[in-house]
Structure formats: structure tokens, C-alpha cells
């Protein structure tokens, strides 16, 4: 693109650090979820709920634990890098805020009427914003509750705050369920609107400069 060559600092929807961190996170999340299912199965939280061996990472608990305790480092470090990057560059605020109640109702209505064309990839609707915030919080919660389950004596005060060891386990399980729920919607929508998937691979459309003099035209 000649335009790209002439512009020294072109802003893309998904700059390369975001793309790298996104795909690392995608792989690590799958490792954590599937190895977590392997660990879960030895002492189920919901009676009768088992995860098929097909979807478990690891033949039995020991390899599943090895995967989980290896993946945790990548999840935590990559997640911390993502949050730091998002906060320092202002990306998180720019993409995910503000969320107005009116917009929420509007986008729920649109979604129910299957108006999910997603014409402009660079603007998230209110429901999208909420979903992304929820999954980011769930990710943080998984790291923190995971730490509590891993070290219930060293972090005994924190475990008590969560309501005890078994409560921490249940919260960790719920966090997984939230992330899996998000994943299903997220992957389904990205396949329905493949341009979004492509954007996360190539960077997507270029954006206007971050701080334009007038930020009016947003209706």
C-alpha cells in the first residue's frame, strides 16, 4: 500500500504487540482450560459433570497438572504484559470505555434482531465492551484464585477472604466457565464475521490519530 509507506507511524486496529499477545493468550487459555478439566475430574465440583478425555490435556492428573503449572506462567506474564500495554498506550480505555446504559440497551436490541453486521471493526458496541471487560476480569480472577488454590497456607488470609479453600476452587471453576462461555461467543462471531479474524492476524484497518483535535463525530 503506497499510503502506508508514506505514513511513518501508521496506527492499526490491532498493533503487532496486541496480535502476538492475543494468540499467545489463545493458545495458553486452551492449555489452561483443557489441563484444568483433567485436574478437575479427580474430584468433581458438580456431581455428574465430567469432561471427556478427548478434551482433556494429559492422560491423567499428573500430566494435566504439569501442563497447568507450566501454562500458568505464560498466562500470568502474557496477561500482565497485555494489561500494562493496554493501560500505558490507552488502548483499553479507548476500546472499552465509556459504556452508556442507553448503548447497552441499543446493542442488545440489535443483537436480538440479528443485526450484528459489525460494519466498523474499529468501534465495539456496548455489549462487546462489557464482554471484553468481563473476560479480562475473569482472566485476572483465574490467576488470583489459582494462586489461592496453589498456596492455601502461604496465602491463608486471602483464601479466607474468598470464603475458604473449597470456595476458592468453586470461584476458579466459575471463572473457567465464564471464559469458556466467552470463547464460544467470541469464536462463533469471529467466524460469522471473518474480517475480524483476519484483522487479528494482519492488523486490520488503520485508525485515525489517537488524539484528534475534535472527537465529535461518533454518532
Amino acid at each position, binding site marked *: 500500500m503506497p499510503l502506508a509507506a508514506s505514513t511513518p507511524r501508521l496506527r492499526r486496529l490491532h498493533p503487532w504487540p496486541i496480535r502476538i499477545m492475543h494468540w499467545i493468550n489463545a493458545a495458553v487459555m486452551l492449555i489452561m482450560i483443557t489441563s484444568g478439566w483433567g485436574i478437575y475430574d479427580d474430584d468433581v465440583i458438580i456431581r455428574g459433570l465430567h469432561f471427556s478425555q478427548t478434551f482433556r490435556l494429559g*492422560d491423567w492428573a*499428573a500430566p494435566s497438572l504439569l*501442563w497447568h*503449572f507450566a501454562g500458568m506462567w505464560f498466562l500470568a506474564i502474557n496477561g500482565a504484559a497485555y494489561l500494562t500495554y493496554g493501560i500505558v498506550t490507552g488502548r483499553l480505555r479507548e476500546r472499552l470505555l465509556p459504556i452508556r446504559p442507553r448503548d447497552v440497551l441499543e446493542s442488545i436490541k440489535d443483537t436480538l434482531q440479528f443485526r450484528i453486521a459489525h460494519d466498523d471493526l474499529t468501534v465495539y458496541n456496548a455489549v462487546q465492551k462489557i464482554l471484553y471487560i468481563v473476560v479480562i476480569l475473569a482472566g485476572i480472577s483465574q490467576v488470583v484464585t489459582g494462586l489461592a488454590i496453589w498456596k492455601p497456607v502461604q496465602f491463608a488470609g486471602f483464601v479466607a477472604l474468598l470464603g475458604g479453600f473449597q470456595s476458592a476452587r468453586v470461584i476458579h471453576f466459575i471463572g473457567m466457565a465464564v471464559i469458556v462461555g466467552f470463547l464460544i461467543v467470541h469464536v462463533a462471531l469471529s467466524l460469522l464475521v471473518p474480517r475480524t479474524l483476519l484483522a487479528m492476524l494482519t492488523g486490520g484497518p488503520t485508525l485515525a490519530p489517537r488524539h484528534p483535535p475534535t472527537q465529535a463525530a461518533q454518532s
Partner: protein
Amino acid sequence: MISPFRPARLPDSAILQDHEPLIADLRRRGVLRGTLSLGALTMLTGCDLSSPKSVQSALLSISGFNDAVQAWLFDPTKLAPTYPASMVLKPPKFNAYYDIDKVKPVEGAAWRLELAGLIANKQPWTQAMLDALPQQDMIIRHVCVEGWDYIGQWSGATLRSFLEHVGADLRAKYVVFKTADDYPSSIDMATALHPQTLLATKYAGETLADPFGFPLRLRMATKLGYKNPKWITAIEVTNTYTPGFWEKAGFGWFAGI
């Protein structure tokens, strides 16, 4: 004195050679199974995960790193929470690598605790000698690697007081246990010296019942359940790492909580 940790007669190495084709075949099957389960991952990460052996060794080296991190996180002065007597589960939960009906009771009168390694006085111990040590009592949470837990009340001498009594080298790295049910285990010295690490002889005020490790078992408030061997027959203080029963199967060694 011959250490109880080293067999008097080593197995004939010809046995291994005889079974080499069989072992190789088992490994091949493992490779096949591993390749199948890792196939999806390979597509995602673009890494070469086709060799499960390298994946396995990478996972194990991270596990070794995690052991070091856990040793660093372990605070030797931090006490695990304790609970009221009303919360004690009676009897405790049975857990072993076999079912409760397979437990082989140990005869108390004939039982001796052998000592080995970096210990000044290696005279074997009897039940009466253990009972003569200052007794401690603790009501702590047992956390299993599987996820379940219960509150238990354990009494006995602290491992620290025992090690001091027999003149063990407290600067050594490991304390290793041998048991009547062939369940070797080893722990770090820092945890061995923790005030909530007991050589337990009683549960809920009563002499340990057979399924729970009579006459002697280890009970640590700061490690997962599988690190607590029952029916202990020998203790060695050493600088040489020896993996325990579950560690050989792939569980982490430090297993601190």
C-alpha cells in the same frame, strides 16, 4: 551399618536387557498417544510439539523450576491456619495408591524406626521412645492434590525435635522416608523443621488406626496430602535427591501449599 535405603543386592542388569524390546514398544505407544493429543496444539502454536519426549522434558523442567519457586515462597515461620476440635473429621479420610482393604497392618511391638544418613545416633527407635519425646497437637486442613480436603487432629513429636534429638545434620537438603507399604517420600529440610511438621502417632486423641499409618506417619500442615507417608519404617537425612512414589509418576516434588 547397611543403609535401609540401599538394597544389599542390586538387581541383575541382564533383566533390563532382556526386556528392552518390550520397553521400546511401550515407549512407541506413548509417542503415538502423545502425538494424537498434541495434534491440535501444534496447529495453534506453530511450535514443534510432535515429539512428546521433548514436551515432557520441558514440562518436567518447568516443574523443577516451580519446585524452586515454591521453596522460595515457603515461609518457615508462617503457620497454617488451625481449627476448633468440633470440625475434626472422624475417622479421617483414607487415601493411598491402593484400596483400604489392601492395607497391611504393622505390628507395633515388633516395629522399629531405622535411621540412616547424616544422623549422629542411628540407633533404631521404638514406639515407647517416640512417646517419650515432647508431644504436640495440631488441628489442620489436609489438602489433597485431587482437590478435596478435610480437617484433622494430629498428635506426636515434631520432626524437628526428633531430628535434633538424634543429632541429624540440619543443614542437609532432604529428609527421606521409607514405609511398610513401599511408598518412599522425600521432603526439603526447611519443611522438615517447620513447627507444624509432626511425626504423628495419634489422630483425634486416639492411637492411629491401621489404615491411617499406625504406628507412625508424617503429617505436614504445609504440604499436599500425598507428601505425607504412612507406616514409616525408616528416616534418612541426606543431600541426595530421591523422588517419592508419586513424583516418579510425574507429580511435583515440593508440593507446598
